């Protein structure tokens, strides 16, 4: 028991939370930090590209409206992508055009890109904790 605890403690990365923050801000950065280069590069390419597709399809970056819980949830999912979200907001992108035929597709791309990046952050956390 003591040996097992000692072994797990030895493999825990000292900067776990900094790695998670980096993984959130830049998709794939956590994996790159942990030396998983192939995975990191794949996430770095795929997730921002998926987010960009969502913007191109005229999806909307939802505002945080507590009075509309589903809109607030969609906003939380959008934020999951990190820096691309902040850049898009700073550049006044993601206004969404409700009458566009691709509007709902765009929303799906934006929301799912954010949610997938949250999964990537959790994976980086597991690796940093020595679980994978």
């Amino acid at each position, binding site marked *: 028991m003591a040996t097992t605890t000692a072994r797990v403690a030895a493999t825990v990365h000292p900067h776990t939370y900094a790695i998670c923050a980096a993984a959130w801000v830049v998709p794939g950065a956590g994996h790159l930090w942990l030396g998983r280069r*192939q995975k990191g590069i794949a*996430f770095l390419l*795929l997730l921002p590209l998926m987010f960009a*597709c969502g913007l191109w399809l005229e999806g909307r970056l939802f505002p945080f409206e507590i009075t509309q819980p589903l809109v607030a949830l969609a906003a939380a999912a959008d934020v999951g992508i990190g820096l691309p979200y902040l850049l898009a907001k700073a550049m006044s992108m993601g206004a969404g055009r409700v009458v566009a035929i691709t509007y709902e597709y765009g929303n*799906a*791309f934006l929301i*799912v890109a954010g949610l*997938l990046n949250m999964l*990537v952050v959790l994976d980086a956390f597991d690796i940093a904790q020595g679980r994978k």
Partner: protein
Amino acid sequence: MVVFAFFVSAVFATLMRESAGEQLRFGARLMGGFVVGGVVLGWLLYVLPF
């Protein structure tokens, strides 16, 4: 739908498999499942009267 299936499959395959070959096989299977599942579900909804 195919583009969406590609992105989701690629990310899941990268997350869940370690080697590039395994990722490619798993990703292709996953994407096929998404696309075929989407078409089948579309036809089922088309047949339903409501």
